[in-house]
């Protein structure tokens, strides 16, 4: 009896060690690609990331040097346009889902938002191509921004809804019991309490679309030079990387690596910022 139990105990220990071992290996496998990607980007791109890269236009084929300033600025412009479209609609839609509406309608809307989140991003490019580019007869920053903005909407909507739902009901009741109107309660109490979470959702959505290439292929199109009007084609970092990477020139390959390094670093910084935001104490809500 005694011995049997000891034997049983040993077998359980082995199983436990096995399980945690497998979990550890899986965790390492998750991190490995990130490490590999970053390692390769640094090896191949770091040498080309210099002052010129951030200040000069792309050099013609064969000429050494040049930069991607137009693509960096273009990406920021596209993000701004996307934000103007995606942030208000996403945030207000998320607040609606959390605070208003009937349970049945909301579950339908939630399902649709989840479906939209799963739509391949190139689809958005095609949709905007059909709706905007063909109609206005030209690629433009507006079209690119719109495509990115449309991708943002369901992302922000869902994160906003989730963090707004996390705000304890006691705060809503407390405000309403002071005779504060419903919408003021939502704006000044609920959204303020959830603001960190809402901002986090917005930043993560921006980081996500910042690296999107496919929806820009036939909307923003790309531009080797400065974009002088938002109704003209515009350069974007991911597009420039794509163009350079599929080119046959070594110089351009190096530039593509550098661009990818800058892009990944930028997205990495946004994620660090999000970490920083969500870490602070104060509001109990993320």
């Amino acid at each position, binding site marked *: 009896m005694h011995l049997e139990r000891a034997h049983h105990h040993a077998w359980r220990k082995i199983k436990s060690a096995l399980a945690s071992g497998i979990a550890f290996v899986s965790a390492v496998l998750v991190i490995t690609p990130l490490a590999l990607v970053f390692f390769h980007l640094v090896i191949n791109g770091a040498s080309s990331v210099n002052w010129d890269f951030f200040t000069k236009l792309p050099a013609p084929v064969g000429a050494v040097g040049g930069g991607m300033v137009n693509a960096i600025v273009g990406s920021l412009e596209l993000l701004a346009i996307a934000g103007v479209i995606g942030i208000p609609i996403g945030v207000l839609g998320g607040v609606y889902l959390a605070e208003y509406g009937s349970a049945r309608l909301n579950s339908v809307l939630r399902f649709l938002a989840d479906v939209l989140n799963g739509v391949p991003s190139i689809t958005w490019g095609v949709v905007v191509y059909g709706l905007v580019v063909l109609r206005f007869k030209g690629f433009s920053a507006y079209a690119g921004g719109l495509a990115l903005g449309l991708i943002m909407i369901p992302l922000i909507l869902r994160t906003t809804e989730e963090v707004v739902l996390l705000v304890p009901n006691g705060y809503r*009741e*407390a405000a309403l019991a002071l005779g504060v109107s419903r919408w003021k309660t939502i704006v000044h109490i609920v959204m303020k309490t959830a603001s960190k979470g809402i901002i986090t959702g917005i930043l993560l959505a921006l980081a996500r679309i910042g690296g999107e290439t496919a929806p820009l292929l036939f909307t923003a199109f790309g531009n080797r030079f400065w974009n002088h009007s938002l109704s003209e084609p515009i350069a974007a970092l991911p597009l420039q990387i794509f163009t350079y990477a599929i080119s046959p020139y070594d110089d351009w390959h190096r530039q593509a690596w550098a661009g990818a390094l800058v892009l990944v670093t930028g997205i990495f910084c946004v994620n660090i910022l999000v970490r920083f935001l969500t870490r602070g104490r104060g509001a109990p809500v993320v």
Partner: protein
Amino acid sequence: MATPEQSVTERVERPPQPLESAEPAPQLTFEAKNVSIWYGEKRAIENVTLDIASNAVTAIIGPSGCGKSTFLRALNRMHELVPKTRMDGTVLLHGEDLYSKTVDPAIVRRRVGMIFQKSNPFPTMTIGENVVVGLRLNGVHNQKFLNERLEKSLRMAALWDEVKDDLHKPGTSLSGGQQQRLCIARSLAVEPEVILMDEPCSALDPIATAKIEELIHELKAKYTIVTVTHNMQQAGRISDYTAFMYLGRLIEFGPTTKIFTNPTEKQTEDYITGRFG
């Protein structure tokens, strides 16, 4: 004030009214007549008729689920926040129908404040901001006025001396009992006529509870107070009138001393003596 005439068969026995025989009839703040409330299909309270005297503390006691909180919330229309609520009957506040179609619930709640079981100072605001938030969000921006009201409310809530140097600190940095008094100050700042309290001490330790009870005693000089409590000793200590509810019905209502020493109903007696509940 139009209450539909009830048929004799429907008529529920009206519970004894407080001080019916006493010399000056107390002034009434609330007159609730035949109030029934449903959450969806479920009836939470049934035909509750109850008058609440001004400048007095009325306690509502009863076991969990007896509808006492629902009734309390019917007095400032907070129960309407639950979807699919239906209400029948009338509630008059100083003779005005709270449920008239032209009445904005926000105005009702400005006149009838509420303190909750769990203290809930807004986590994004300082102590000072918490107190005046009701005024601010109702459009008052005169800083001098807000400062005066801030001090006055905190003094009335017996919190001023403890926090006057920490007004810029987060409201959530206070202890549980202080947070609850902060919530009382926040409620007082909009100058309501009535303060409803939904088990205001159930999350507090005995010392913090004693402070709140003392505060309730002081506040009744200026305000009408209706409190729901699980704690019968507390009801006995702080209230002038006590209503006992059971299974959604008002079983008995009267002066606290009478309810506790000489209840008319068997169920009241059983509950108060601890035979159930």
